[in-house]
């Protein structure tokens, strides 16, 4: 019996700005089960980082979060006070951020920063907390862990710091981990290691993992399910297999064209690119957000809001006026070139 850890329905974020109301996150619905990884993919500025902050209620004060449903293991998160939320953060849901170089306080040892969340949430003694910290550091692959506790962040490399961040996220045994671009700032050689680490840890501790990234390669490696985000909306959702084998939304197809896939992309073939930039998210935006950049745009695309619809397989949904069959034809044409 699979346990549902996070249930989100119709999550939106609105921010008043000088020129009107900004809608960086619009009407997102998704869920994360125990032991599974949901990847949220999209380019810079599509709103994925704000989504993670919205889940943790760490948005800037002017931002307003709305959701018809937002539960963590059945507990409703929408009505919680700041104090109640802070009891959950770092405790039952924790986050790993993108910049390991700046995400740790330079004035305190990593041992200090590792144990403080555990002591705050569980009230354990310092030595008990230190023991757990050492255990977790070893789990994330850091050697000579006990000595490391006394080190300062500036004495560690980026890769090591990110491992520390992961250990820190695991200190209180959370049910859900949100990793916002955890490997983007690291060397390519280290990226794979960190991803494998996350996948292993997730399996071992059976946490839910939301992985936010712009890198489809990352997604292919670790995701169970994928949500493709564009301009504040999910344009396609499904299992990793469904997304990679039968991408139905033109944007998803475009993204996959941009990366070379061993075995599929012919030698010397030109990689695709998607012309144009992300549209402004201020004010009402009728019609499909991708219309300006889409090759197959028609009048129907701009007529009214486009809702999510089912693709050929169950659980696979996308937001486009084209039918799955029409979309499949386009996909074949693209990859044939």
């Amino acid at each position: 019996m699979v346990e549902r850890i996070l249930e989100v329905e119709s999550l939106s974020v609105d921010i008043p700005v000088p020129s009107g109301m900004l809608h960086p996150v619009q009407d997102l619905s998704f869920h994360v089960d125990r032991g599974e990884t949901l990847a949220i993919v999209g380019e810079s500025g599509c709103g994925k980082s704000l989504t993670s902050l919205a889940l943790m209620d760490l948005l800037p004060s002017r931002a307003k979060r709305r959701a018809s449903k937002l539960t963590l293991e059945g507990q409703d998160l929408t009505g919680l006070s700041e104090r109640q939320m802070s009891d959950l953060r770092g405790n039952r849901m924790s986050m790993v951020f993108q910049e390991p170089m700046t995400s740790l306080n330079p004035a305190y040892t990593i041992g200090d920063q590792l144990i403080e969340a555990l002591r705050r949430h569980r009230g354990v003694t310092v030595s008990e907390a230190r023991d757990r910290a050492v255990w977790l550091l070893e789990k994330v692959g850091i050697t000579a862990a006990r000595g490391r506790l006394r080190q300062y962040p500036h004495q560690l490399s980026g890769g090591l710091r990110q491992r520390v961040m992961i250990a820190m996220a695991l200190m209180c045994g959370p049910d859900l981990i949100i990793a916002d671009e955890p490997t983007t700032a690291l060397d390519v050689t280290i990226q794979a290691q960190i991803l494998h680490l996350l996948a292993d840890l997730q399996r071992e501790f059976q946490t839910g993992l939301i992985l936010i990234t712009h890198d489809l390669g990352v997604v292919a490696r670790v995701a169970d399910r994928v949500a493709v985000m564009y301009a504040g909306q999910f344009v396609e959702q499904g299992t990793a297999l469904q997304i990679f084998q039968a991408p139905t939304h033109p944007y998803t197809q475009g993204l996959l064209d941009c990366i070379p896939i061993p075995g599929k992309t012919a030698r010397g073939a030109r990689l695709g690119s998607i012309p144009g930039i992300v549209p402004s998210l201020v004010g009402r935006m009728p019609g499909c957000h991708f219309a300006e950049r889409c090759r197959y745009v028609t009048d129907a695309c701009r007529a009214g809001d486009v809702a999510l619809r089912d693709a050929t397989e169950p659980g696979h949904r996308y937001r486009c006026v084209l039918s799955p069959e029409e979309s499949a034809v386009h996909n074949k044409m693209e990859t044939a070139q």
Partner: protein
Amino acid sequence: MAVSDISPIEQVLEPSPRALLRRRIFGHAGLVIGAFVLISIVLMALLAPYIAPHDPLDQVLDRKLIPPIWFDSDKATWTFPLGTDHFGRDYLSRLIWGARISLMIGVSAMLISGVIGTTIGVLAGYFGGRVDMVANFIITTRLSMPVVLVALAVVSMVGSSLTVVIWVLGLLIWDRFAVVMRSATMQVRNLDFVASAQALGCSTARIVLTEILPNVSNHLIVVATIEMAHAILLEAALSFLGLGVQPPEPSWGLMISEAKGLMFFDAWLIAIPGTALFLLVLSINLLGDGLRDVTAPEGRN
């Protein structure tokens, strides 16, 4: 620049429309009020011979210690709207002429210290290396000496007059110019247009004058206002202690000093010149802050 060019994250980090409005009002109000008050005082000083109702040095002991007209007293009269001091001198006229002294000292000392400090700072920032080390040493040495004390000592030995005070202050308060100009120059010097000027073979002097200076001028102006205010306050302190401008000149600091024995009964004697000093320095500071906000609108205060 269209709003859509800024990513949503950046938009989120900008202050709310209400806070922006509040800051704009305050920022511009400061600049406008400061400029207005300062210009009024400058005009008052320039037009002193024409607008001062009496001779500020004219002592008539019969009419001493007449209170200003807002006092409920038979002696108060519109002939002396701000009253008279213990020598019977008209306070309004002394106030107006006193503005000249403060402004003259403020501007002159600021110019002298500005030349010294900017030269040291720009040279240090542009050449770096040993020149920078020497400049830093000079600046640190200057910073280690207590300004007021040294100024007092020097003035007491050389003799106190307006000129001496101006030169002593000018030779002492250049440190902020040097520090700020040095860091501003260092920032500018690595930019592309300097490199291209060097590649073209322009002489150092030319590069400094035509490329560097114009681009650090906004910092220069801000520091100039700070040091002008600084010089005015220092002169007031020196005159207050008796080692600045000498009587019977109507330096505001001196006026406060002369009145301090009488302040228990005739408090206006110190309130009026003190308020004048406060308003002058405040207007200069507001002007400087406003200029800084206008030239660098990142919200840093």
